[in-house]
């Protein structure tokens, strides 16, 4: 049972670590920032406290020492240095490790941990030049001589009561300092309806004659300074008396819903007036205030939900969409206007619900970006390269399942850019570039897709090298005529590498086939553009969500299939003659020659004469292909379900969708069909070859 709770702690701590890392990055650029140092200290502190509480003793000890360092830093006893930042970065990794492992038991881990601890302790004790504690902060001014009168304007925020502060105590304390006169303003108290008993709507001004210093007065409000606007102004020497003029000033202020001004009061107090004891009134007003009870309420603007629950919600909504489709089919068959109207309403609602649910399952990429920054930073330092890494569009939201699948490929792409794209500083200077390299990471929306571009201004890729390599590896034929773009895309072929020796980081090309495979698993595409000497851009095109698509329902032999509409350019009805005349599976449409595949061949179905065959023209990058199907049945918005692990690697079917009548139709991955078709896969292939 405690494990679940621990898991929650780990999850929350990882958020903390993320924040810590983010603050560290910022601190690297602004080493003096008090806010950042404080943020880092807080994060360490929470980790320490939580660690001790949930039995992560090593974590707790470890962060305790780090906390000490940052405590010194924030008290100006230790300076922020690049060394300190690097040390903290590595410490962050250790924290992650400790969070993942819990208390260490293996000897190797323990040794590493102890060594690291010693390093930190060392740093904490002697690492920075210990500076004398600067006593800069609040300087106490000389205590005023004799009595003065102050006007104190105390304007608490509505939430003052919620953290247990009773403003009346504060007023009492003020009065205890000397001779006081409170003016309470209630114009902000709403008429009965919206009044919230736990909110504070009153504000006060207090005239106070005291021998105490200004600071002493301010100290009364020391623990509420964030929850109120406070001003304390000296208005005259000596005491004061409430005369009719001052009363008039007060009532004027009340009537105009404003406060009395310091300047007005100063003028009035210059005159000597007779005393009027209004303490009774003050007291009465105070009592009124006390009626407002203090209840505490914590307002929640966002909640954390287990991702499983979101999955379930999305699943249920998908179900609902399916059932709703069945209802629509039924209603249309019945033709009763009542049922039709009802079905329409259900359709409208479920569509809204669906949009809503899918929106919930989208999360921003932000959290992953930290890892990318880390990678670029660490790797460039290791390699002695200088790199500016700029991220744009980090707030773009994607289905969390997509983000999960995206991280590894992107890390790989970035690694390539740092390792093989960006040159060493001297090489760059020699090439007439600035010594500092640039990597841009840009994410943006394009229709129903999200595009992610990773661009570097490094040395680019030599097309001839790739070509030679591909020929040597037997990937292409020596005589093959390929455009530069086609050649570049060879790096996505499996087993391709342009590096003679593979470095420990990544060989350009090594693993690019894996990148493509992973991206295509989430129905995405990857492409590359590069100019020698100028740099390389890798572009990922991703669907917004994995689970819903607009599809075209088609029939091939007895089976129904769904073709994603996003990949379709046009649909044609052909005559049989058109196909008969076609030579080498090319059909001429609008004076254009378009290669096509017969989906019956693709699916190894028997050949059949179809009266009016239909051709679906699909497009991917600059390639076009016609898919010949028996019949186009109509357009459907459908929920795509995974086929499970046993069918995950199917060559052309990427998912399944449940139709209105409960039957299943398979979703065709048109990009795969295109790829396989251009490699000649569908020409005379036999079943045994599977």
């Amino acid at each position: 049972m405690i494990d679940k709770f621990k898991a929650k702690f780990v999850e929350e701590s990882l958020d903390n670590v993320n924040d810590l890392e983010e603050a560290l990055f910022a601190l690297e650029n602004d080493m003096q920032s008090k806010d950042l140092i404080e943020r880092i200290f807080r994060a360490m502190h929470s980790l320490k406290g939580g660690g001790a509480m949930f039995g992560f003793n090593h974590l707790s000890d470890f962060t305790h020492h780090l906390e000490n360092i940052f405590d010194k830093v924030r008290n100006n006893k230790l300076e922020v240095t690049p060394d300190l930042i690097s040390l903290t970065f590595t410490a962050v990794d250790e924290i992650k490790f400790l969070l993942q492992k819990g208390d260490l038991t293996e000897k190797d881990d323990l040794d590493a941990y102890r060594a690291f601890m010693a390093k930190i302790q060392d740093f904490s004790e002697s690492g920075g030049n210990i500076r004398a504690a600067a006593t800069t902060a609040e300087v106490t001014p000389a205590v005023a001589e004799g009595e003065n009168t102050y006007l104190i304007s105390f304007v608490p925020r509505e939430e003052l009561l919620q953290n247990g502060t009773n403003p009346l105590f504060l007023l009492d304390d003020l009065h205890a300092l000397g001779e006081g006169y409170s003016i309470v303003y209630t114009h902000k108290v709403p008429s009965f309806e919206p009044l919230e008993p736990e909110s504070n709507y009153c504000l006060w001004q207090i005239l106070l004659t005291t021998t105490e210093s200004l600071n002493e007065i301010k100290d009364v409000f020391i623990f509420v300074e964030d929850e109120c606007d406070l001003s304390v102004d000296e208005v005259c020497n000596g005491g004061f008396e409430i005369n009719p003029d001052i009363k008039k000033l007060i009532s004027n202020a009340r009537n105009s819903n404003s406060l009395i001004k310091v300047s007005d009061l100063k003028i009035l107090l210059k005159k000597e007036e007779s005393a009027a004891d209004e303490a009774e009134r003050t007291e009465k007003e105070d009592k009124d205030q006390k009626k407002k009870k203090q209840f505490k309420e914590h307002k929640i603007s966002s909640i954390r939900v287990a991702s499983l629950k979101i999955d379930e919600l999305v699943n249920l909504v998908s179900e609902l969409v399916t059932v709703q489709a069945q209802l629509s089919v039924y209603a249309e068959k019945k033709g009763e206007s009542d049922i039709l109207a009802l079905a329409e309403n259900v359709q409208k609602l479920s569509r809204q619900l669906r949009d809503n649910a899918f929106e919930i399952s989208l999360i921003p990429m932000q959290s992953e970006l930290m890892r990318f920054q880390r990678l670029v930073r660490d790797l460039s330092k290791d390699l002695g390269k200088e790199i500016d890494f700029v991220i744009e569009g980090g707030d773009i939201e994607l289905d969390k399942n997509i983000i999960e699948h995206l991280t590894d490929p992107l890390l790989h792409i970035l690694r390539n850019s740092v390792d093989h794209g960006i040159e060493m500083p001297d090489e760059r200077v020699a090439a007439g570039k600035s010594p500092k390299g640039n990597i841009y990471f840009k994410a943006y929306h394009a229709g129903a897709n999200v595009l992610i571009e990773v661009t570097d201004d490094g040395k680019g890729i030599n097309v001839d090298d790739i070509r030679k390599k591909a020929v040597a590896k037997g990937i292409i034929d020596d005589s093959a005529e390929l455009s530069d773009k086609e050649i570049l895309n060879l790096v996505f072929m499996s087993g391709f590498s342009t590096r003679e020796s593979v470095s420990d980081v990544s060989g350009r090309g090594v693993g690019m086939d894996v990148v493509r495979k992973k991206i295509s698993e989430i129905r995405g595409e990857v492409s590359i553009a590069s100019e020698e000497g100028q740099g390389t851009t890798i572009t990922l095109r991703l669907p917004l969500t994995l689970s819903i698509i607009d599809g075209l329902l088609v029939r091939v032999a007895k089976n129904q299939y769904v073709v994603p509409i996003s990949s379709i350019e046009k649909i044609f009805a052909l005559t049989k003659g058109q196909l008969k005349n076609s030579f080498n599976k090319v059909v001429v449409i609008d004076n254009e020659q378009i290669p096509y595949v017969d989906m019956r061949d693709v699916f190894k179905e028997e050949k059949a004469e179809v009266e009016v065959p239909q051709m679906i023209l699909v497009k991917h990058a600059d390639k076009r292909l016609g898919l010949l199907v028996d019949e186009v049945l109509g357009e459907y918005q459908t929920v795509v379900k995974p086929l499970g692990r046993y069918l995950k690697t199917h060559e052309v079917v990427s998912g399944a969708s449940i139709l209105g009548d409960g039957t299943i139709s398979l979703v065709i991955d048109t990009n795969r069909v295109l790829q396989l078709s251009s490699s000649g896969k569908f020409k005379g292939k036999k079943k045994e070859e599977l």
Partner: protein
Amino acid sequence: MLENSYNTLLSFKVHDEFFALDAMRVNHILEVPEITRIPNTPDFMVGVLNLHGNIIPVVDLRLMMGFGNPDFTNDTAVVVINPEEQQDSSLGLIVDMVKEVVETEGLEIKPTVADKEESMLRNFHGTFSMDGQFVHIIDIEELVAAAEMWS
């Protein structure tokens, strides 16, 4: 090879032999529903079925065991197993007849001698005797691996 991690077994008939597997891994037993064939897959992979909105791949255990030309009768059933408690590992098995749930306690389980050349499943957890019939206990891991291996 006999770790008795299971207490109950579900036994069923495939062709004219009896087999059993861990009953705790069985989620549903269905009459053969409409199964959507998936092109370009081996014969034993008969397709996918719709089980309460989830897509479940179905394999024909009879073909996997190397028994050809299987019939579909009133007794033919789909046993849906969930080997790893993950949605995506659910798998339907077509069998000729579901027999019964057997408690393993008190059963005398001996090493399996059955070794059919054509079968994709060769590694059994053991064999026991019930009502004068031998029942072979299927190794679910091997079954899953075999169903996954085609691609």
